């Protein structure tokens, strides 16, 4: 190699180092706090701890990540914490529908606009379940039976009050004219057990909360609250797969509802910082463990970033406002 080429190569590499090296990108400089606006053991908590574990296992981040539960006031505690941490790039938060429902129902002053959307990780489905020993095979039959029994005779179990489960219940009532007595419990697992024990007549559990009892033949899915069927074709119970559950629209109830499982940061952070977490989470999404978890819980694996995500969230907020207004769930001050 001639001296000239060596010099040229050196100059070239120096230029690369100056302009476009990835080492210049932002990286966390201390422990990242991963806030969960819900208690330990719930769906959001599980997902956060899975992400934490995968980041750690595959060495995706130099600094460590810790999960902190701040579930007080239907998650308001966690959201207010992140709202108050404006400009702090070492805090991320996982959200569920309480991002919209909590401020609307309780009047606690925060809004998703106080946060910076990073990435939508998945959407959680809702399925209408009944006890397997009941005769109802379709949503239509069940709704007809609820109507025939009279107003408030059928009990719908759900998680929390004025949150997603009750919103779906009210929307279902609006659509069909049936009237349920909604009974709020503290966790999705407990709700499903109440259904197996026949203390309630139906639930709108997420797939992951009910799948074990479905496989054991204790509960039966009637329809999924989405515009399209689930994509998972593996047989779960007998010859039924997730993809065999009809949509509620097919079953004559025009209602769809999906719950956001997305990651946000505090407000006032830089684009670089958002990109770092967005890329990190994309790596997590690519891992086989993550894919397995998605399949187990029959999640809708839609992912979004940037403006697309922001627009989605904004639209969803409007929708919640509308749904909750119709249901009479808005806090008195609004």
């Amino acid at each position, binding site marked *: 190699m001639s001296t000239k080429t060596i010099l040229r190569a050196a100059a070239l590499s120096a230029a690369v180092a100056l302009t476009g090296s990835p080492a210049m990108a932002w990286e966390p400089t201390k422990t990242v*706090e991963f806030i969960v606006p819900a208690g330990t053991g719930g769906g959001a908590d599980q997902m956060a701890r899975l992400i934490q574990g995968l980041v750690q296992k595959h060495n995706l981040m130099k600094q460590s990540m810790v999960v902190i539960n701040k579930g007080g006031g239907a998650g308001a505690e966690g959201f207010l914490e992140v709202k108050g941490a404006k400009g702090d790039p070492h805090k991320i938060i996982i959200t569920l529908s309480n991002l919209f429902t909590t401020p609307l129902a309780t009047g606690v002053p925060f809004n998703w606009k106080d946060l910076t959307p990073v990435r939508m990780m998945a959407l959680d489905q809702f399925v209408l379940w009944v006890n397997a020993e009941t005769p109802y095979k379709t949503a239509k039959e069940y709704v007809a039976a609820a109507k025939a029994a009279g107003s408030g005779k059928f009990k719908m179990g759900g998680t929390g009050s004025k949150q997603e489960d009750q919103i779906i219940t009210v929307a279902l009532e609006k659509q069909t004219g049936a009237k349920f007595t909604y009974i709020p419990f503290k966790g999705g697992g407990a709700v499903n057990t109440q259904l197996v024990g026949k203390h309630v007549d139906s639930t709108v559990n997420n797939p992951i909360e009910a799948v074990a009892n479905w496989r054991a033949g204790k509960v039966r899915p009637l329809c999924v609250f989405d515009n399209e069927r689930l994509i998972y074709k593996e047989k779960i119970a007998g010859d039924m797969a997730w993809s065999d559950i009809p949509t509620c629209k097919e079953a004559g109830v025009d209602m769809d509802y999906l719950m956001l499982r997305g990651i946000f940061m505090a407000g006032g952070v830089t684009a670089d910082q958002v990109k770092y977490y967005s890329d990190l989470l994309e790596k997590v999404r690519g891992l086989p463990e993550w894919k397995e978890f998605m399949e187990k819980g029959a999640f809708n694996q839609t992912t979004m970033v940037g403006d697309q995500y922001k627009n989605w969230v904004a639209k969803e907020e409007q929708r919640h406002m509308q749904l909750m207004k119709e249901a009479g769930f808005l806090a008195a001050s609004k």
Partner: protein
Amino acid sequence: MSDNHSHDRSAASTRTLELVVAALIFLLGAIAAYDGNRIGAGWGIEGPQAGYFPFYIGLIICFATAVIFVRALWDRAKAREMFVSRSQLLLVFKMLVPSILYVVGVGTIGIYVSSTLYIAFFMLWLGRYTWIRTVPVALGVSVVFFLLFEVWFLVPLPKGPLEALLGLD
């Protein structure tokens, strides 16, 4: 226990404390009843409303503390009884005042620095230990907790400017 210290002068009579405490708890009860009433304390077709329990709990508290208050007012024996003697109170304050400063410190200068200072202060002032014995204990405890929580359990505890300076936060 008060007779051990009967030579001490009394800092407050039991009756005084009884009255103050009853009044404070009465206030708590009143607050609960007020807010319970605000959000609805009725019993509808859906059972008790959200404010039903706070409202009646508040009322019961108010009623019971009012009775305790009135009874204490007429209780001559309690008026003579010593709640706490001055020397006892002094001892309690010796613990309480540094503790108040300590928890304030937890929120401002961080739990580790605050704990080190607190333990050191206690050993030097109340225990009359020498610096040579105090410093290792006070530092040692904080270092052990730091390792335990920040490093092994990954539980972030409140930290202050010193940790930021050292890059430990």
